[in-house]
Structure formats: C-alpha cells, structure tokens
C-alpha cells in the first residue's frame, strides 16, 4: 500500500503543477481533475475507501463538472491562452515560488525531525465506521454543516429565481420584449 500511496501522491503533485503551468484553461482543469482522482487514490491507499469514493463522486464528478461547464461557456479561445502565457513570465512567478519553497523546506524539515506518527498499515475504515463517527462524537459539526448547506441552497434558489409577473423588473422585461417584436 505504501507504493500506491507514494505513486498517487506523486501524480497529485505533478498534476497540480500541470494546473498552474498549463496555458489552456480547459486543459488546466483536466489536470485538476487528475489531481483530485490522485488524492482519492491516496485515500484508498491509506485505507479510507469511503472517503476516496466520496472524493471522486463529489469533487471530480460534480464540482469539477461545473467548473469545466463554466469555462466552456466563457469561450476563451486563443486570447485566453495568450493572456495566460503573458501571466506565466518568470518575473511573475519566481518570487512567490522561492518564498513557498522556503516554507516547503521548513515543513519537510519539521516532518523529518519530529515524531513519525502512524505508519500506513493497510487497515480499512468501512462506511459504517465513518457513519457512526460522524453521527456520534461529531454530530454537532455535521448538523451545523447541514444548516450552512441549507442556507446556501435557499440563497441560490432565491438568487436564481425567475422574476415573477408582478415584480417591476419582470414587467419591464416583458415590455422590452414586446417593443422588440
């Protein structure tokens, strides 16, 4: 399982680099999808197949579809690629890259010197175990997240609703349409 963990971790890192360096927005999003699937495989390798499956279903299968959908609609074409290329000049990314590299070295050094923690043992966490954990000790957090999502749902449905026939905006739209026709 350790080999699978390191391989998929490597794929995740390389794919994420691909997201940043690719100049075509849709291709960059594809790299992001590969990266998310690689993270899902990391979960599988760590013995959490439930989390891995959810990662693919929710992130790669639903959220990223919406990202690709929106980028497709933008119709970026050649100009988008040129703009991305202009933003990717070394003087733009060199400074932040050096600073993050320093942070990365610090992180690796800390991990190296400290406690090794638990090793990848290959034990499996079943869906039932995740469920009892979520609705046992973490019940309040789950319910709070549910309320947050409900609020988001109500807001989205309010923002996206069609203007009713009585609202002033709707009437103006109808009038404008009549003038055109």
């Amino acid at each position: 399982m350790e080999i699978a963990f390191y391989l998929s971790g490597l794929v995740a890192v390389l794919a994420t680099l691909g997201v940043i360096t690719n100049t075509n927005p849709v291709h960059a999003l594809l790299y992001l999808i590969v990266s998310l699937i690689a993270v899902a495989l990391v979960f599988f390798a760590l013995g959490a197949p439930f989390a891995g499956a959810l990662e693919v279903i929710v992130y790669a299968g639903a959220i990223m579809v919406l990202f690709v959908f929106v980028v497709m609609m933008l119709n970026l074409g050649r100009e988008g690629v040129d703009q991305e290329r202009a933003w990717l000049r070394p003087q733009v990314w060199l400074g932040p890259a050096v600073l993050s590299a320093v942070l990365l070295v610090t992180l690796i050094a800390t991990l190296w010197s400290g406690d090794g923690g638990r090793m990848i043992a290959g034990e499996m966490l079943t869906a039932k175990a995740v469920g009892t954990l979520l609705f046992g000790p973490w019940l309040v957090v789950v319910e709070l997240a549910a309320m947050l999502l409900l609020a988001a749902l109500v807001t989205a449905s309010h923002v996206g609703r069609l203007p009713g026939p009585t609202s002033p905006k709707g009437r103006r739209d109808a009038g404008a349409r009549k003038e055109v026709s």
Partner: protein
Amino acid sequence: MNWPSEQLVASLTAMLQGVVILVGVVLLGAVLTVVERRLLGLWQDRYGPNRVGPFGSLQLVADLIKILFKEDWIPPFADRPLFVLAPVIAMASLLLSFIIIPITPGWGVSDWHIGLLFFLAMAGINVYSVLLGGWSSGNKYALLGAMRASAQTLSYEVFMGLSLMGVVAMAGTFNMREIVDAQQGLWFVVPQFFGFVTFLVAGIAVTHRAPFDQPEAEQELADGYHVEYSSMKFGMFFIGEYVGMVLISTLIVTLFFGGWHGPWLPPIVWFALKTGAFLVLFMLLRAAMPRPRYDQVMSFGWKFCLPLTLINLLVTGAVILIADPL
C-alpha cells in the same frame, strides 16, 4: 510444493472471468444495436434491417465493417487531445463500472465493500466524455448538446445516488453481493418501489436514452455532442450508450430484483432473463415515448424526483428505526 498452486489457479480464473465479462459486455452492446432496430421495426409496424443474412442477423457484421473502414477524421478546428480522449472516457468509465456487478455466486470481478459508491463515482466521471467531446469538437451544436447533457446528468445524478440509499439502508451495506443476499426473502422492488422508479428514470437520463435524449436530439441539434465524430470514435460513443443500458439494467436487477435469485432455473439464466427484460423495457420506452421539452426534463428532475427520493429515504429510515430500535 505443487505447481500450479491453488493461489495461482484462483487468480488466473479471476482474471479470465474479468476478461470474459469485459468482452461479453462489449459484444452484448454491439449486438443490442441491431436488436434494438429490429424491435423498433416490429413495434412501429415496419421491417427494420432484414437484408443482411437470414432475418438480418448479419447486420452487425456489415455495420462493423463499415464503421471500421470509415475515415477516422479529426476536424482541424478541434482540440485534438481532448477530441481523442472523450470517447475513451465514455467507454472506459462504463466498462469499469462492471467490476462491481455480481452475476452469479461464482461470477463477478470484484467484491468491494464500497461497491455501489464505485458505480456512482464512475457515473460522475462519465459526464466528462460528453462535456469534453462536445467542447473539443469546436461545433456549436456539439457544444449545445454537451451543455444540455452535463446539466441533465448532474441534475439526475443527484437523486440517482439518493434513490439507491434506501436499498443501502435496508441491506445495511454498499457491498453488491450482500445486497443481493439481503433480497432472498423479498425483492427490494416491493419496499423500495419509489426508489426503483426514480432510479429507473435517473438511469435512462444518465445514459441519454429516449425520452431523455435531449443532448443528441436529431431534430434540433443534429446529433448533439458527437456530431463531429466519425469511424470508431463515433462507434465508441454509440456502443458506449448500449453498454450504459446494459449497466443500468444489471444494476436494477442486482439492487431491486434479487440478482441471480429465482426458483428452478440456474442463477445465470435468471440473471440473463431479468437483465434482458429491462433491456427490452429500455427499447420499448424509446419506441413509445415522445421527447419532452428540455426545461420540462430539468424541472421534473428537481421538483418531482428529488423530493420523492428524499421522502422515500426519510420514510425508509423511520421504518427501519421503528422496526429495529437501536
């Protein structure tokens, strides 16, 4: 130490089973293309393809030769890598889903305890085939088809997962074999009737079959997302649709109709009979149903099916808790 050892024999048998299932599914998908046209002809009072071979039985061979020898054309305005990748995703994600289908007690590729979630994950990945195929074609009809397909599939996948959760709650597992075994007394179609109905609707919508074939509506979109595809790349989308039909049928049989269980006949025959019945149902729906308007499809999914699955799940949970308090 005796050679070949038991372990080697077991793993070779498992591999052979996997290959047989894979090839069998693809062949079944190809055969279904002809079967569907014959059946549509029968139901619509016309002949259908009946010229090649006795009763048109060799039509498949003719189609295969034709599709293999067509020019494999990639439009110059297309996004090449994505254009090639899209049909691969279409075929591969559907074929991979068959890993979790238990055919008989002895037949099946793998037996995971997250089985059902794996299917939902692959169904999520499958959306990209249409999305990328439509976008990379650089054609406005293809883009419109891809738009419709992705919005429709996303909407229907939401309650497809929810419609199956009633079954999961009753069986107490995501494992497909255990779900089949939990149905020995009573098929889940009886207590989970609404789950079955909504899953059937979602399954038809996710495979873009009529009456949910707005993404490829010939009359409006000139075939939608695969309008620029030719030769075997088109073939992969085409066969992929039928492989999707087989997948949804086998899933319905496994989850709601007791899988291989049945009296008198051997398990494989029961499984084949039940799957065949649902394949014919898919075709009959196409022959019988008109295509609704696109916004009607979307509001039907969100305003009718989603609340129905939620109520179904709520009632199922309540009944389970009342019957068997913790």
